[in-house]
């Protein structure tokens, strides 16, 4: 930024900062090294700035002295009351969390136990040490015999009509069936 200079008209050049520059310096002085350099050499511009500074200092002193003199008792009392009510609230919140956590743990334990019991019952039977091949064979025969004895025998259509048999065997079967029907009638 250049310092205030003569315009294109016949105004004389001013070696001092313009109002605009002073205002800009007050807003963001660090960003204007040219203005800072000028102020270091120019007594008149420094005085311009000082007018603002002195007025602001006076305002700040008066306003701060006033605000410091205002009693803060009510505010402190409100904050302390807030702190007192906050402690039980926090304790209640902690207790609620503790209760929830213990319920979750209890539920987890019971689910775990249930799963474990289920695993034990579902496990396949373990072979007894004394079993051998002969014993297993005997058991299987016994089981087949039981199954044979208890199952209901129904003739398959193939068997009943002799499908897939030799013609002589088919004739014999037809004669047998005819005899059976006559017998029932």
């Amino acid at each position: 930024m250049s310092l205030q200079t003569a315009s294109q008209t016949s105004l004389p050049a001013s070696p001092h900062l313009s109002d605009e520059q002073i205002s800009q310096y007050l807003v963001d002085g660090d960003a204007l090294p040219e203005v800072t350099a000028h102020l270091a050499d120019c007594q008149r511009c420094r005085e311009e700035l000082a007018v603002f500074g002195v007025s602001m200092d006076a305002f700040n002193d008066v306003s701060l002295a006033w605000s410091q003199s205002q009693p803060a008792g009510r505010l402190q009392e409100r904050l302390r009351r807030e702190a007192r009510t906050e402690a039980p609230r926090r304790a209640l919140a902690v207790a609620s969390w503790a209760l929830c956590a213990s319920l979750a743990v209890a539920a987890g334990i019971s689910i775990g136990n249930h799963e474990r019991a289920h695993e034990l019952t579902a496990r396949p039977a373990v072979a007894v040490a004394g079993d051998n091949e002969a014993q297993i064979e005997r058991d299987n025969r016994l089981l087949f015999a039981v199954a044979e004895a208890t199952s209901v025998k129904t003739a398959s259509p193939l068997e009943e009509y002799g499908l897939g048999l030799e013609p002589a065997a088919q004739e014999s079967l037809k004669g047998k069936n005819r005899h059976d029907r006559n017998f029932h009638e």
Partner: protein
Amino acid sequence: MHTAVNASIIALDRQVSIISELDDIDALVRLYRPKLLRYVTFSIGDGDLAETITQDCFLKAYRNRASFRGDCSVSTWLFSIANNLVRDHLRTKKFQFWRKARATAVDITEMSSVLPSAERSPEARLLVREKAQQVNGALEKLSANQRKVFLLRFTEELALEEISEAIGMPVNTVKTHLHRAVTAIRKELGAAR
């Protein structure tokens, strides 16, 4: 990695110190209340309402102190809460607010009576009172945003970035308001050529 761990430890340490600072009610009130009360008072021009808003501001800050991350200073945080409260108040009770504000306007002459007399001669005190009155008169003529920005910069001495954070405006907008405010105040003070 080592630097990152150190940075996180420093951040945590800062957080802990801020939380304990916010926990200490007496220190909190002693340190920040005068500046906050002054700022709100001259922002809205009503001492009674400013007292209420300042109390609400501290109460809100105290209740929400756990959520304060320490990204900005405590004073910037408090000023931003105060600004929100002033804005809410203006929004919800606009008409009552201005009627009340006119009724209990700030009296700087009365305020200057609390200046410590031992520090200045009677003439100097008179001069201070006159200058303060001039500034207060000039402040009243500014727009609400110009006034807030001006007070935060020249009374509370916040940096431009802090003002931007406290008011929720971009830095360039803050600069524009500030420039207009400074120009207007200097003109009122008779400093402008």
